[in-house]
């Protein structure tokens, strides 16, 4: 069965747009770079909706396009797989991505490197799409790396800022650790099975499980944990907020960081086959959710609050996944994409409004009068994040809580704590930014965002409010493709207990935020002085950043040592000692001395050797 036209357009449109923008538009009118790219976004969104409809109607595609490499009994092909999970995430990525592209056209209008931004941004978009429709691990890895590369380009977009450059490098290198895990897993899979196509691989795995399957699963989890910022290697994400706001909104909220969760969802049959791995994933996810939620409550930069919030929600997704509910995790991924994008774009509007690249809580306050539309969108998204009833976030968060309840009290407690913390920090952010101004804040005045930036936020906010009503449809969509398995993909049914628990947790968090922000208005500004040790702990992410810095220091010293020892002394020494060994040898046995005696002797010896051959 061939590829539908929409699938071809998924790739052809961005590639064509990038080429046209780079070669035709950029040299002449860089300010128009976004036109071909926005057109490509429209095409891609339409194509993804069409594909979603096709998959929902029941046709699943797993089409190889061409053979990429093959040797012996292993083969890597290039192919397209369109099943429920892939197409659902694809649609979210395309819709949210296109709207953020429109937003970015307004946000980055005044930036001198406008065209470079758009090209990198759309390159990321292409890579993400490619990753979502890959049909085998190696191709997945190719686009995974592509996404990492675009992330590097975009975080460090403002190359004149040293903080941005180092944040980009940190993100890239930290992701390298995960990529190494991924590579090891892929190589092992290739070695055992010879073909990493999802469709074939999991069937083969069922019939003959590979040795070292736990290691493969663990490596895949390492990769996902790094890309999706789970506890040990999450710190690159808050620092990645150095990039422009559209970048943070698209990549580090909605799409790129969810790639890890997507990888785990795709690999679910493998993960589930390893005995303790799902529990590990759930534990790490839950721990991350609480840890990051706690840190988000104490941040002072608007984007960093949202970054830690993203880490926390990724932890929730991992928790749901680890508890065996892949469908719940993907649902939360989809909903989170909408409301987190809205939150980031509102933060971007605020920053744009006060004329800076990012907003500190001390610089904003009382913005409800000057930025009403932004505030409305923010409130909608905040409700969604907190999981209040009709919003999209409610459906997914309740599903996570329900999954936790089913699995055990500990997991439920983790989920509820994370929910409460989520409500706390988002209400705190809402109150600090839009109400007041508090005692530590300048009375803020910011101009409202222009329509080009306001409209996408509005649409996304509508999505954040209403997407949840599509949850049953999404559930049916996810089940198409029958991979991983029906029960893993099933979404839970509505239950009053969960509704009550979720809403109670959210209310608890909201009330606490209100009390600490509006009830005791000075608390926000004085707690750091009153509790300095706690403040310093929070600064270093409860000490984890110090650990990471120490580890980085150790690694650097070790590599210097190894470099000096192995490379300089051993290898260079070996190379340089070769002449010392060979020169005297040459001098000793000078075969070409020019002397007649030597030549004669060689003739005689040669003849003797040849006669020896004749005699023997």
């Amino acid at each position, binding site marked *: 069965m061939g590829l539908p036209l929409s699938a071809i357009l998924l790739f052809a449109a961005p590639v064509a747009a990038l080429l046209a923008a780079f070669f035709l538009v950029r040299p002449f009118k860089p300010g128009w770079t976004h036109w071909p790219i926005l057109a490509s976004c429209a095409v891609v969104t339409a194509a993804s909706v069409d594909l979603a409809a096709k998959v929902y109607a029941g046709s699943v595609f797993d089409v190889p396009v061409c053979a990429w490499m093959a040797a012996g009994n292993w083969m890597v092909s290039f192919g397209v797989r369109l099943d429920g999970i892939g197409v659902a995430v694809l649609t979210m990525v395309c819709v949210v991505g296109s709207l953020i592209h429109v937003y970015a056209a307004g946000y980055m209008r005044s930036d001198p490197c406008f065209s470079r931004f758009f090209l990198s941004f759309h390159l990321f978009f292409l890579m993400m799409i490619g990753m979502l429709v890959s049909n085998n691990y190696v191709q997945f890895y190719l686009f995974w790396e592509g996404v990492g590369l675009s992330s590097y380009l975009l975080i460090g977009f403002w190359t004149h800022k040293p903080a941005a450059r180092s944040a980009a490098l940190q993100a890239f290198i930290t992701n390298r650790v995960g990529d190494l895990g991924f590579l090891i897993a892929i190589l092992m899979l290739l070695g055992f099975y010879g073909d990493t196509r999802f469709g074939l691989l999991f069937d083969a795995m069922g019939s003959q499980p590979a040795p070292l399957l736990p290691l493969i699963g663990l490596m895949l989890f390492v990769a996902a944990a790094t890309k999706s910022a789970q506890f040990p290697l999450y710190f690159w994400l808050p620092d990645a907020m150095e990039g422009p706001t559209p970048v943070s909104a698209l990549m580090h909220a909605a799409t790129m960081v969810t790639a890890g969760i997507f990888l785990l969802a795709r690999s679910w049959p493998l993960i589930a086959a390893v005995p303790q791995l799902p529990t590990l994933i759930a534990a790490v996810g839950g721990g991350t959710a609480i840890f990051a939620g706690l840190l988000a409550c104490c941040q002072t930069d608007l984007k960093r609050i949202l970054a830690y919030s993203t880490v926390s929600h990724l932890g929730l997704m991992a928790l749901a996944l680890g508890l065996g509910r892949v469908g719940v995790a993907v649902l939360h991924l989809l909903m989170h994409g909408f409301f987190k994008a809205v939150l980031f774009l509102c933060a971007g509007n605020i920053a744009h409004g006060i004329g800076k690249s990012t907003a500190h809580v001390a610089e904003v306050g009382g913005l409800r009068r000057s930025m009403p539309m932004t505030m409305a969108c923010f409130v909608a998204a905040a409700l969604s994040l907190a999981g209040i009833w009709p919003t999209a976030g409610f459906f997914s968060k309740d599903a996570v809580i329900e999954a936790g309840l089913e699995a055990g009290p500990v997991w439920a407690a983790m989920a509820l704590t994370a929910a409460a913390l989520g409500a706390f920090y988002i209400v705190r952010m809402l109150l600090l930014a839009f109400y007041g101004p508090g005692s530590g804040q300048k009375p803020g005045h910011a101009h409202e965002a222009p329509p080009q930036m306001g409209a996408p936020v509005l649409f996304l906010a509508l999505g954040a409010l209403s997407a949840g009503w599509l949850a049953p449809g999404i559930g049916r969509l996810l089940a198409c493709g029958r991979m991983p398995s029906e029960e893993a993909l099933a979404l839970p049914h509505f239950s009053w207990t969960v509704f009550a628990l979720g809403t109670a947790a959210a209310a608890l968090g909201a009330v606490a935020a209100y009390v600490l922000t509006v009830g005791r208005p000075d608390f926000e500004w004085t707690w750091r002085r009153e509790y300095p040790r706690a403040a310093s702990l929070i600064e270093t992410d409860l000490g984890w950043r110090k650990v990471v810095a120490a580890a980085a220091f150790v690694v650097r010293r070790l590599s210097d040592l190894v470099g000096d020892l192995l490379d300089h002394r051993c290898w260079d020494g070996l190379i340089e000692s070769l002449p010392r060994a060979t020169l005297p040898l040459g001098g000793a046995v000078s075969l070409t*001395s*020019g*002397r*007649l*005696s030597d030549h*004669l*002797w060689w003739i*005689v010896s040669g003849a003797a050797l040849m006669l020896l051959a004749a005699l023997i």
Partner: protein
Amino acid sequence: MNATVLQVGVLLFTLGLGMVVLRGQLLAMLLGIELMVGAVNVILTYHANLFGDPKALAAVVLIICVAAAEAVLGLCLILKLHHGGIPAETESLAELRD
């Protein structure tokens, strides 16, 4: 007798070869060459007479003739070297002239 002839011939030949290879003076090499030629002649004559082949005997005569001419030419070269002040030794004759 055949074995004796061959053995004597081989021994004389290798002695001549040793003279050529192991001694460093050109004149010594000439002496060695003469010896080698002589040894070969002995063997060739013996076998020529054994098989009754006059052509081989004629070849022996020609060999003696040519060996003589070659010895004369070698001596001329050595004398030329001597006139030029270059000692006729393999050590000094290790490089080509410019």
